[in-house]
């Protein structure tokens, strides 16, 4: 009988949370609150004090559903329309119903939201139909506040270990994870009854136009780890053809940020300073109009603020240069871009997977359960469309509480020694090679091919070529080398990135229609075909170890749409009747 090598230390947990950014700390705290006797471990590739998409905080909530301003039913409608009908409304409703209680909880933990003179939340309208944006001008304390709660609830935190694969039990249920220390190359095994994946977006899929591997929109530590790990564990993924593509400050590649500036009078404009879209809320339809303006001779596209009053501009600067991406100010300074007299040049981001912004994620139901027993997902990597930071918190809570209940009914699974030994061999292999191909070169090549062949407008023949190139890179994996433990971490991320690239190609080829504006604009199938494609597209690991896609019917809606609202997101372009 195979035994697990003594080289690996083996830990045990009832609830293992992977990823300590936004959803992860909330999941860990809520699992511990549900049952303080549970052994809850929070694993983080970096350090929970400053990890994930909100390492420097966040400037607001994009989807606050607050009584008096919006109802859960209105919000479910808005997201259903924004996502072209392809939603499991039950998951969006679970978010919407939990939204207000989560805001009150965060408020009680010390998060400062903008309030009016009567003490009511000062919610702003950015979406096409409803009012959901709540500013947090002092949102840079977010990670500190979460850290305090982790301490208070006695969550066991393990920093600087990355998970490389999930381990599964004899019935296909989750059984734990294999870990790598990116500073020492020590490996470890955690045996766990439940695992909650909170690993963020697949942010290193496309290559930013700067060519700098780490100049991504998403925190580049989010390399698609959770997408790849769920895939190899047998879970279903959903909507991977609905890419994340965002309008960003050119070269800097961070948000400009229209949700902050919009309610204060800023707007997206063409090179003549004219407005061309009615609504700056990020959707595929908005990105398609953005793309058309860029390509149509009226570009580049800018964020216009130079018409605003001095006090408004000072306030915008204070928020944008202290929150989320505070180095924005430094970037503008060097290029002599002052909001008072110059518009900010914008561009289209690289592609990625992210359900927080679009709809590409690991499939979860309204209890945050994936299709693998005991495995949960929350945050940017879990397929609840347009879920943003507040959705990560709400789904973190849902996952934490459901996982705690699962622990009471299920025994600790046995580990499969062969699985563990095989994974150790795979992980450590690049360190044993003294020459070969570096992770940086291989990653660059995959991501450059993603840009060349997968980025919309999508072309069938190009996506087929992409698969040929990816297959060649996969053959090269046997030469992947790492000169130290840090490079070994990058090598493991290169595996995740290649997995995600192959999944992106498969899902995009499978859906033979166009939908979600630019996110899935297929030149050879330019129309939306509701007769055939009003359905989820799921991706799993196929028999041949390559991604396999199939349709999953959309559950009957629980909130019906009004006929006249159905295509409101498709009518974003402003018709300019004045002839120039």
């Amino acid at each position, binding site marked *: 009988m195979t035994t697990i090598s003594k080289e690996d230390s083996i830990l045990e947990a009832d609830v293992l949370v992977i990823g300590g950014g936004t959803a992860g700390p909330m999941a860990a705290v809520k699992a511990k609150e549900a049952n303080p006797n549970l052994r809850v471990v929070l694993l983080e590739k*970096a*350090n929970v*004090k*400053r*990890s*994930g998409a909100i*390492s*420097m905080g966040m400037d607001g909530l994009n989807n606050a559903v607050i009584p008096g301003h919006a109802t859960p039913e209105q919000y479910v409608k808005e997201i259903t329309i924004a996502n072209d009908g392809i939603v499991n409304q039950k998951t969006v409703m679970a978010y919407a119903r939990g939204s207000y209680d989560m805001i009150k909880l965060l408020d009680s933990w010390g998060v400062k939201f903008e309030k009016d003179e009567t003490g009511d939340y000062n919610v702003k309208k950015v979406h096409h139909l409803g009012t959901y944006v709540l500013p947090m001008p002092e949102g840079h304390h977010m990670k500190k506040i979460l850290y305090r709660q982790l301490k208070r609830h006695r969550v066991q935190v393990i920093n*600087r270990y990355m998970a490389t694969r999930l381990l599964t039990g004899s019935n296909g249920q989750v059984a734990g994870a294999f870990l790598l220390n*990116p*500073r020492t190359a020590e490996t470890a095994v955690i045996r766990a009854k439940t695992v909650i994946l909170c690993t963020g977006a697949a942010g290193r899929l496309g290559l930013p136009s*700067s*060519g*700098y*591997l*780490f*100049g*991504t929109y998403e*925190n*580049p*530590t989010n390399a698609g780890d959770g997408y790849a790990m769920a895939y190899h564990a047998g879970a279903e993924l959903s909507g991977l053809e609905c890419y994340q593509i965002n309008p960003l400050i050119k*070269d*800097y*590649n961070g948000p400009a940020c229209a949700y902050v500036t919009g309610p204060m009078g800023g707007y997206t404009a063409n090179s003549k300073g004219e407005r061309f879209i009615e609504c700056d809320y990020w959707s595929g339809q908005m990105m398609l109009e953005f793309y058309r303006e860029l390509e149509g001779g009226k570009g580049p596209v800018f964020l216009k603020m130079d018409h605003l009053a001095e006090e408004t501009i000072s306030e915008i600067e204070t928020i944008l240069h202290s929150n989320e*991406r*505070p*180095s924005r100010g*430094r*970037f503008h300074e*060097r290029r002599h871009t002052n909001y008072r007299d110059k518009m900010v040049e914008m561009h289209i981001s690289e592609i990625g997977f992210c359900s927080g912004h679009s709809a590409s994620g690991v499939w979860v139901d309204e209890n945050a359960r994936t299709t693998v027993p005991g495995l949960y997902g929350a945050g940017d990597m879990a397929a609840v469309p347009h879920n943003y930071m507040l959705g990560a918190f709400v789904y973190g809570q849902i996952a934490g509480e459901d996982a705690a209940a699962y622990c009471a009914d299920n025994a600790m699974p046995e580990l499969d020694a062969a699985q563990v030994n095989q994974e150790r061999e795979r992980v450590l292999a690049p360190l044993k090679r003294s*020459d*070969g*191909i*570096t992770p940086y070169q291989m990653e660059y090549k995959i991501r450059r091919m993603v840009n060349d062949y997968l980025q919309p407008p999508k072309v069938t023949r190009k996506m087929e070529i992409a698969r040929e190139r990816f297959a060649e890179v996969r053959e090269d994996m046997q*030469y992947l*080398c790492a*000169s130290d433990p*840090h490079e070994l*971490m*990058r090598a493991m991320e290169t595996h995740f990135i290649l997995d995600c690239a192959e999944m992106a190609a498969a899902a995009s080829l499978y859906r033979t229609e166009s939908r979600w504006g630019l996110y899935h604009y297929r030149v050879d199938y330019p129309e939306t075909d509701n007769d055939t494609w009003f359905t989820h597209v799921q991706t799993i690991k196929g028999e041949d170890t390559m991604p396999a896609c199939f349709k999953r019917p959309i559950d009957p809606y629980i909130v019906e749409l009004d006929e006249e609202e159905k295509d409101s997101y498709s009518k974003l372009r402003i018709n300019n009747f004045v002839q120039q």
Partner: protein
Amino acid sequence: MPLANTLTSVPVTVDQEKCIADKGCTVCVDVCPLDVLAINAEAGTAYMKYDECWYCMPCEADCPTGAVNVSIPYLLR
């Protein structure tokens, strides 16, 4: 396939006078989401070891002596 050493200019600089890594401080190294900073044991100061920066700034914001400066990586600047 043999390997080469290709040098790059990195965006994070550490003021050698102000850095107190010689007194055991590792704050900037601890908070970096990408784990790209390290301590040079001989010099007793922190430095950027890998050119993999998200210009996110926790290293600069959390440094107790103001020794760390983050600039925008050259390719984006």
